[in-house]
């Protein structure tokens, strides 16, 4: 009878060299069987991790980050636009400018203008590089959301998080390399965090705020029993392996049990905020013991990044009841309130802990909203792929600046337009990748996140 393994034993073998395997197998594993082994990017980069904040449904740029005094003045003026959302749509033969519903003010040392929708983020503008000239290729939620995540607006492709994890691997094997925290699923379903043709190891692991954030991570047995079973399994597998020349395929699977055992502790530990100070919880707007809400997602993101998770995406809400304010722009108020303070708290918290030095924070949505509607006093706004605002903060990003601009009424990205592809190229650059060289051979072609069309790094936002 073998003595049961204890927790320390498992953790030790999962994090440092394994006690199970002789050197040669260990080496084989490192070389071939571990797709998530840490890798160097193409060139040294400051950013080691990404926190990708995705606002579902289309945040109105002219009401949030893109002040348009001319739109206020021109309220009610009829305009013409060959716009994809109104083409041939009954009742939209004539369109009129619609003024923003929130006031803008200058903030910070840099004097960046932000509306009263985001008072807390407004307090962080000196850390932010705002891009006011974003544009995208589709006016449907589904396609634009897929595009923002994968660079493809119709076919499924690997997610940006999968590309980054494929390129960099991940340092903490007790946690997944790419984590998506989403209370509900956004448009295009799991495709937004799928690895698609990249190996499955690079797909995003979905965390749904609540009791069991990752599928099957909660032990169904008391620790003692589980250890007995895993020890017996190890013994059995070791014998099986010994008669099969230490096949790395088999050895790698054995090792995953050790890692999985550790995950059962590491994952709940990452999501257990007990050790967080009251002040920290309060800054995220969290009550002690709360396990839901965007504040929870933001604090979890910090804790994951702290533990070496490479790419964390936070999705604020699902494919309904989101920023898609056709009916009434006032629905932006609760949605902004839901994310504003937590995002500001996250930026400050990361900065204070020195994590912002090597963490890139990305804030975006799938498209903007029209500066017009079919009546001037319409309460809502329609989908608008021609212009929207996104921002970057943290590692490698030039803080306190605005890049690009829309025209006077926020209709078109007119100065230094940044397409989603350019945005992706820039994020990859900040992570140390040449977006043209981070490729994967599939079906005879070398695929990349930015696709075949030309894309450019937005050099102006680089520190």
């Amino acid at each position, binding site marked *: 009878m073998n003595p049961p393994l204890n927790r320390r034993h498992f953790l030790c073998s999962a994090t440092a060299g394994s006690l199970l395997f002789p050197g040669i197998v260990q080496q084989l594993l490192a070389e071939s069987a571990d797709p998530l082994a840490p890798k160097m990017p193409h060139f040294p980069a400051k950013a080691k991790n990404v926190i990708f904040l995705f606002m579902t449904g289309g945040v109105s740029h002219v009401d949030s980050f893109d002040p348009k005094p001319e739109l206020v003045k021109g309220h009610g003026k009829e305009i013409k636009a060959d716009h994809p959302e109104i083409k041939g749509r009954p009742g939209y033969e004539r369109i009129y400018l619609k003024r923003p519903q929130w006031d803008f003010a200058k903030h910070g040392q840099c004097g960046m203008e932000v509306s009263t929708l985001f008072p807390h983020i407004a307090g962080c503008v000196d850390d932010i590089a705002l891009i006011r000239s974003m544009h995208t290729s589709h006016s449907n939620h589904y396609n634009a959301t897929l595009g923002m995540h994968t660079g493809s607006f119709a076919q499924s492709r690997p997610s940006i998080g999968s590309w980054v994890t494929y390129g960099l691997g991940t340092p903490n094997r007790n946690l997944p390399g790419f984590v998506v925290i989403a209370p509900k*699923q956004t448009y295009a379903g799991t495709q937004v965090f799928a690895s698609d043709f990249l190996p499955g190891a690079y797909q995003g692991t979905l965390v749904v705020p609540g009791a069991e954030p990752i599928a099957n991570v909660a032990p169904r047995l008391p620790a003692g029993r589980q250890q007995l079973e895993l020890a017996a399994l190890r013994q059995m597998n070791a014998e099986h392996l010994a008669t099969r020349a230490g096949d790395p395929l088999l050895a790698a699977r054995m090792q995953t049990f050790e890692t999985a055992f550790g995950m059962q502790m590491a994952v709940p530990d990452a999501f257990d905020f007990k050790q967080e100070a009251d002040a920290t919880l309060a800054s995220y707007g969290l009550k002690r013991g709360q396990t839901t809400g965007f504040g929870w997602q933001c604090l979890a993101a910090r804790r994951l990044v702290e533990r070496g998770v490479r790419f964390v995406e936070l999705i604020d809400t699902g494919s309904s009841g989101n920023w898609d304010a056709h009916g009434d722009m006032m629905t932006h108020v609760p949605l902004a309130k839901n994310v504003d303070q937590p995002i500001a708290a996250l930026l400050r918290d990361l900065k204070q802990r020195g994590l912002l030095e090597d963490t890139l924070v990305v804030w975006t949505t799938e498209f903007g909203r029209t500066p017009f509607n079919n009546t001037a006093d319409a309460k809502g706004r329609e989908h608008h792929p021609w212009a929207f605002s996104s921002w970057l903060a943290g590692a490698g990003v030039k803080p306190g600046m605005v890049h690009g601009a829309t025209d006077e009424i926020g209709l078109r990205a007119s100065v230094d337009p940044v397409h989603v592809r350019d945005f992706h190229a820039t994020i990859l650059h900040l992570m140390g990748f040449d977006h043209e060289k981070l490729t994967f051979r599939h079906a005879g072609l070398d695929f990349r996140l930015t696709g075949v069309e030309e894309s450019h790094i937005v050099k102006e936002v680089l520190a």
Partner: protein
Amino acid sequence: MLLCLKVAAQDHAFFESKVRPLLVEHCYECHSGEKTKGGLALDTKQGWEKGGDTGPAILPGKPDESLLIKAVRYHDKDFAMPPLKKGGKLPEQAVADLVTWVKMGAPDPRVAAAKIAGMKADEAKAWWAFQPLPKPDASKTIDDFIDVSLAKAKLMPAGPADPRTLIRRMSYDLTGLPPSAEEAEAFATDLIRHPNSAIQNLMDRLLASPQYGVQWGRHWLDVVRYADTAGENTDRPLMHAWRYRNWVFDAFNRDLRYDDFVRMQLAGDLLFNQSESKQRAEGIVATGYLAIARRFGHDIDKDMHLTFEDVIDTLGKNFLGLTTGCARCHDHKYDPITAADYYALYGIFSSTRFAFPGCEPKGQPRDMVPLIPQAEVDALMKPWQAKNAKLEAEKTKQLQANKAAEQVIANLGGSSSKVVFESKVAEGASVPFEYRVRVRRGEVVQLAVLPNANHGADSTLIEWRIAETDGMKRAWSVAELVPELMKGNPYPANDGAMWCFLETTTAPVFLSDQRQSINGNSDLKSWSLGSEPSVFVNSADQQVMVWTTLAAESFFVHPGPKRNVAIAWMSPLEGEVALTGRVADAHPSGGDGVAFQLKHIAVPQYGPALAELGANLKPTVMPEPMPVIPVAYAVVDTKAQNARFHQRGDPEKLGDEVPRRWLSILGGEPVPAGSGSGRKQLGDWIASSPLAARIMVNRIWEWHFGKGLVRSSNDFGARGEKPTHPKLLDWLAAKFVETGFSVKAMHRLILSSQVYQRASDLPSAVDPDNRLLAHFPRRRLTAEEMRDSLLNASGQLDLTPAGAHPFPAEATWKFSQHGPFNAIYEMNKRSACLMVQRQRRHPFLSLFDGADPNATTAARQTTTVPTQALYFINDPFFHAQADALANRLMSLADDDARITSAWRILFQRQPTAAETQRTKSFLANYPASNADKWTAQLRVLMASNEFLHID
């Protein structure tokens, strides 16, 4: 003559000294080789002659009319070259030189090698994969080919696998299931006694099993990216796609000739037009291959060019090993496939009507193909239609007859109505109300629900109680209507009151259509006009899931788009009543909420007038549901029409018409006039191409050995890999044709070989990828094999064929981009039939490297990640299978019997003495009841590498 030559020499010198360096330095970066921005190549004479998207770049002798000169002169900012970021305008001298050159007639010696798209013409014609198949050398065996390469590499092949390994390998390989211990033992004995026939007998038995078709059909479903949903923005269920899935299983089981298998999938509907009905139906079902193509976008019809791309891309890869989809925007960059080839095929598919799964703006699925002849359809439909028409006519008559009376009532109510309360009900919200009004006998209080803004209607929950505040304290409530809604409209209530269910958009109109059940559920009943507006109830004592969740014993209304629905209560009393209740959106995410209005119509004649109108109404009992016609998700021909080029793949920029025809490199035969879409011809062309046989035998090889002889099994073009054993591949392909395209004959050939029967081992340094097949590659079970093995071990695997998925009934669908279809259906049938969605990966299949439902999967990947181990530690399904097997074992006499039985069931062998000993001490030490000890032990065995790998 001499002069001419002299001039030519001068021209040549000018080009070489002035023009060529200039083009190389300033233009080639974007306009040469594979880079042809704007479609323009400047590295050959043909390149500028053909020009780019805007036409020929140079008109020899006419510099002012030549686009190239216009561009370098930089007159027009939007048409200036080179671009600013590439150095900007050329020096004056350079521009002048180019002008001079064009004036000279643009002499240019740079002749392009004749090319077919991305390949030189002579190379393309000689490309190995396109060559006719040789006659198979009858004296050869598979091992002859394999052994030559092994000998050349001085590699010693592994010895033969032991019997247990071999039967495990063959059983999983051919059926996706493990053998039983009895089968393994019998085989081992047989192999000793009858070494020559044992393997043949085993093969015969496995190939005759219906489970063979499931396993090999699943391979094919991977290749054709089979899914049970459409993939457009709402990911709608494909109700009838399962027929195609089962047809594929069946085709493998009866060893349908592969060339016919190809033809039927492309044109089964056209092949058996005149045949007896079973064969005809089968032909239709087979075209599900085309119909299951992915749909895109919000309005599928607007993105059909993407669906056709998906078809052409998949068809190229799965039948021909060619990446034909790459030629949509431009000629293929590496292979001899032109954009014209792409649009020649495109025309064939755009002349085909694909079954339409519905999408958000066009909710109703259509164009399913009936599997019975029109005469039978008519025999079913005609009586129903007649009955329906009669009812409709009666209803129209009645509605007309009542028009005048309704108007009178409306006028009566006119000025004396008072709105008590009105409110919007936001999506998902609930709005309570509480008011008191004084009423007289015959007056009416009415609660009307209106569609909100222009976003139409939603199912709305109503709670409403009306109580006399003094006197007799009588009370009425809509809750009373729930058990007996069908009692009438008007509905006679207690104490002389009356309820009426009305449409009140203009004048009050009684909802006269009576439904005794909704979606076949007789707990749901309704009064309506057409499908809406309606009032309906769930009279069951539990909630019902239909288009939304309907709470138990509840009352609902559903306004129509732009049509109001109302419940009117006629007062039998004089005095004050309290009106309390709430209106709640019962279908969150189904629209934009509703609005409602509580109104007091203070006219004592109003109620009696309504009662009189209602008394004369005859309710229309809605006809029984439409007869079920068996249909397939399939295709048929529609008007045959050539497609036009989409310039740079943009369907809005149409170019010249391209005649429908076969790929030019494979012959380019045209679709004969008058022969429909050309699918029938396409099927023939593919089936008779040497590529078809090569691709398929390579797949068969790959599904046996894990890797193909050509490892890029979806790409036999220039970017693909070359065969490891080219002669073997050709020999097998030729054998395949010779045996009448029998897939089972190929299995027999391959499984009888020594190379298949070798033991597994680790690769040697000489051949690290085991390309030479010195040993059999060990593999992990696929996701489906894993799940089936767990169910098999627990005794719960149901081997009966799977049918349709339990999708919600079509009539209940309200899927939208905001609320797409999303479901996981558990079942104990073969995992190959698990319902697979395009937008949402099945969690189990996704965790264990299942097939991609959006693109062809030639071979499964095997990733090894800790979240898979978590499954084997904590997943409830896994635990349940161990529990079930433990229950089976507990009936045995003692632990010795259980240990033997467990090992035999799971590993098809006897436990070793050490294993028995170890198991006993595990059981002794495990702190739990005896049954739980066994469950624990079984979890260990069922998570083990031995259980989950095939040597």
